[in-house]
């Protein structure tokens, strides 16, 4: 008798987590009342940067920053923090129910709002074409609320938080 098991490598985990981070961002954008088209039009660019910097372990956070285009003022932000670990149970998972519950709690934004995707990395990251430095808008007067670990895998997980008054 022969037995087999499928080995899930770090590369598999990076691919899975990259895809599910993008899926989660699309869900958040749609559920808070904004149009995902601007985001999905650049899917390729986001996918390339996130997978490159997850592979090199330089990616710290993927943020969806929502702002009022008339004033450029901060409206809300969703952070997907990346946690690198040396161990994991090997299973790949995404908890979309937890994300949707948090979106319902956070509430809608005005449909006139716009958004940016901002990636935070540690120094020494490899260059990815099209990406450059930028600053976050001030979060003064807002609090950060943790949703918890919603995407995970073999030695890599992503924890979501959002900002609200």
């Amino acid at each position, binding site marked *: 008798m022969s037995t087999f098991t499928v080995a899930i490598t770090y590369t598999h985990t990076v691919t899975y987590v990259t*895809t599910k981070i993008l899926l989660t961002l699309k869900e958040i954008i749609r559920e808070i009342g904004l149009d995902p088209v601007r985001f999905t*039009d650049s899917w390729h660019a986001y996918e390339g940067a996130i*997978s490159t910097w997850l592979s090199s372990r330089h990616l710290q956070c993927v943020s969806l920053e929502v702002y009022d285009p008339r004033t450029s003022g901060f409206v809300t932000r969703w952070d997907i923090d990346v946690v690198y670990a040396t161990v994991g149970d090997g299973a790949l998972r995404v908890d979309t129910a937890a994300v949707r519950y948090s979106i319902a709690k956070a509430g809608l934004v005005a449909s006139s709002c716009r958004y940016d995707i901002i990636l935070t990395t540690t120094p020494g990251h490899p260059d990815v074409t099209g990406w450059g430095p930028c600053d976050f808008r001030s979060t003064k007067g807002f609090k950060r609320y943790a949703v918890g670990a919603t995407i995970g895998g073999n030695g890599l997980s992503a924890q979501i938080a959002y900002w609200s008054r």
Partner: protein
Amino acid sequence: MSAVVARRIACTPTRTAAEPWERIVDILAPDPKSGARMELAKATGVACASISSEATKDAAIVVWGGGPRVRVYCIFDEDAITGDGVNENVLATSPTEGDWKMSIPCPPEDLKWSNGKLTSVSTRISARSLEDDVEDDGSESASSARSLSINIEEFLKP
């Protein structure tokens, strides 16, 4: 009724969402200079969102009207790693020549914005709810199939 061909493409965790879409485009429109190739490229965002949601696991991307009817499914998880059930072979003839159409399945909540985007870039590609199928004549919806159900009580009347 035309011939039906199926292809099954390996996706996560061996490929991200954009990579299998590139493979699907290669299979459906092998000529890199064709108009179909350019039209499919404009649907990349909607297709990636569909693939990442795994809508294409059980509901096919369907192409019809320009050659063989092609149903493309995506393979996920362990089967994507082992290659079990994967079939990415090129097609004998391109299904995107002539008057072809494509239907991309998506979760119902993504239908509105997906079709809004596709309508703005293509007259051939549309999105449908993953709960619906594409009929042989190209029309969509399970509701039309329901209208053909037999009323047993009436049928058995003398």
